């Protein structure tokens, strides 16, 4: 099936295309009732080789569900996922399993994502056991090498996860993800369960690995500052929809959707001088994200948007193409009705310098 979401294809060499997601849907039946929770609504995007694609949203936006659906770790309810030319939905169970060599995931909670009873060495070489014919000795040697890649000593191979700090556990998860030399790794909030001091370490490590191993990432996060530091292109999600998708610099310099603007404005930069005038910003999102069980008819943001008009309440919003690098799901923004120069909406000073 094809989405009615406009053309989400981004210009570029088709050979560069690694993953194309088209009209992805994921619905959950709510336990003990007839209602349906729509975690992902018609999501379309593409990931090119070597890039980091950011997916950012608040809790409940469906971003983690999306990450799992893209790898078919969760069965999508609809839509097409094309990875390296294979349509994932059409693959047999075995074909899909073997294709997992090329697509991996790192989870938010490192302790939860490691089997507490397996020694780290066996754990991080699990993909090799499944995808290669390496002997046990070869796998052990590779485990030591992988641990080196992620900045851990060889002794860690014999440790159980419980003996490691969460930062070290997360490094092990990363080692497991890169073990079989995948093309794509979904990073599902890889730093948000870690002590804040280790966040930068992990992000730096991920950046180094990307360069060294020619990886593409889908980086899922609620932290705009982190997404800005790390991603090449960014999709902003709200209530299971992509509301804006653009190149990083474009998105942060000229956010078009009111939700993106609100999110950006609420992100606090570590600069005391930025606080001056923060209070009289134009876009402030009041209230909270509505329930994904009972979705509104028109624009999903209508209940929180400061620019809401009557048309927004009734008309379902499509993703509109602004340029080949920028799409947004807001008719007013698309028609130039919400022309907000960055000066008007008070991007904190430090961020403006970086973006410039």
């Amino acid at each position, binding site marked *: 099936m094809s989405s009615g979401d406009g053309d989400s294809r981004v210009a570029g060499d088709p050979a560069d295309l690694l993953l194309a997601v088209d009209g992805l849907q994921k619905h959950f039946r709510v336990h003990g009732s007839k209602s349906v929770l729509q975690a992902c609504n018609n999501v379309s995007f593409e990931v090119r080789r070597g890039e980091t694609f950011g997916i950012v949203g*608040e*809790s*409940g936006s469906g971003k983690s569900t999306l990450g799992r659906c893209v790898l078919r770790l969760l069965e999508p309810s609809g839509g097409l996922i094309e990875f390296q030319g294979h349509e994932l939905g059409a693959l047999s169970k075995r074909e899909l399993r073997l294709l997992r060599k090329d697509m991996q995931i790192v989870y938010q909670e490192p302790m939860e994502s490691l089997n507490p009873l397996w020694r780290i060495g066996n754990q991080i070489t699990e993909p090799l056991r499944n995808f290669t014919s390496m002997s046990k000795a070869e796998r052990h040697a590779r485990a030591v*090498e992988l641990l*080196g*890649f992620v*900045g*851990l*000593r060889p002794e860690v191979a014999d440790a159980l996860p419980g003996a490691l700090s969460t930062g070290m556990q997360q490094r092990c998860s990363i080692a497991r993800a890169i073990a079989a030399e995948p093309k794509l790794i979904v990073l599902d909030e890889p730093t948000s369960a870690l*002590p*804040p*001091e280790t*966040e*930068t*370490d992990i992000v*730096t490590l991920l950046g*180094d690995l990307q360069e060294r191993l020619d990886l593409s990432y889908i980086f899922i996060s*609620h932290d*705009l*500052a982190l997404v800005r*530091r790390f991603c090449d292109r960014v999709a902003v999600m709200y209530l299971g929809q992509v509301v804006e998708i653009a190149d990083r610099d474009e998105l942060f310099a000229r956010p078009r959707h009111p939700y993106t603007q*609100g*999110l950006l*404005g*609420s*992100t*606090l*930069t*570590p*600069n*005391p*001088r*930025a*606080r001056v005038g*923060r*209070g009289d910003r134009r876009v*402030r*999102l*009041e*209230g*909270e*994200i*509505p329930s994904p069980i009972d979705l509104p008819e028109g624009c999903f943001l209508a209940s929180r948007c400061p620019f809401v008009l009557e048309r927004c309440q009734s008309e379902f919003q499509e993703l509109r193409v602004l340029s080949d690098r920028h799409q947004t799901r807001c008719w007013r923004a698309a028609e130039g009705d919400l022309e907000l120069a960055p000066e008007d909406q008070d991007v904190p000073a430090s961020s403006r310098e970086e973006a410039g």
Partner: protein
Amino acid sequence: MLLSVRGLSVEYRQVGSANRTVTGASLEVPAGEVVGLVGESGCGKSTLALAVLGMTRRSGQIVGGSVEFEGQKLFDVSQGSSLTEDEWRAYRGREIGLVVQHPRGAFNPVKRIGEQIDRHYQVHSGASSGEARRRTLELLEQVGINDPQRRVNSFPHELSGGMAQRALIAMALSPSPKLLIADEATTALDVTIQEQILDLLDELRRTHKLGMIVVSHDMGVVANYCDRVYLMNAGEVVEHAPVERFFEEVAHPAAIALLAAQGVGHDHRAVRLRGLPVDTRRVPPGCRLHLRCPFASSDAGCSTVHPELSNFHDGHQVRCHRAADVTALAQAARPPAESDGGTDV
């Protein structure tokens, strides 16, 4: 001065040893000011914040220091004086509100949210139940909870984590405390909600002269909402300064590393602290941090003489022998070259 804490020390008694997680910490909160308390995980900042209320977790005990609130001594360990439990009640909750990070433990799981907030307000203000409910609804609305009329009838488990956190903040604010201690109170919230709450607190600060101690690891929160920053490390206050100075003229190596880790100032790889946080059961002689500090030098006495908190600038104190040189050293520091496949300890 709204709150003065002098030389506060907290110990955790374990079999055969005592772990002094806070040592001689002093801080002051003027009315209408927000004090940020920062430091890496396990540095003692939460313990200190709780100790202001004469409270500790588990086997902890306040073993030194005094706390004065609006000129009234709450306790003074050296004189062996403290409020009675009855007298404490007039401060805890009423004059001094507390919001912790994990809200579910703070609510009674079998009572409705509304009842609990009403009750908290009634106990501390003597209001009627009708007044209390009005106040509850008003506060729930202010902390950004949709449809408070319906939410007051929810049980704690029916609220999402973020919603429970906001309900807890509403409860802490209901008796109009003069001081609010917020221990990572907004950490788990989405940024749009966090902003609503911080703005509400900021408004209370301006209109009601609410004083605050904000324990946070988020330098964005600190930069945007605090007036003064206290940095702790290994149980000690090692630097405090007005917020602009803290972000621009910071002098303690721990502060430089903390800011660098969040993308402020220097390259974090060049100025990071080595190894694990100092084990406060076995503190080394000299500066507690010297084994981890990239700028430690035996000539300056880092490994032999314990540095005192001393004036670095007007209203800016630092506990570091090399405070004057650290900025220049950090400027010159280069990230260590990475060996192939090596460790980056």
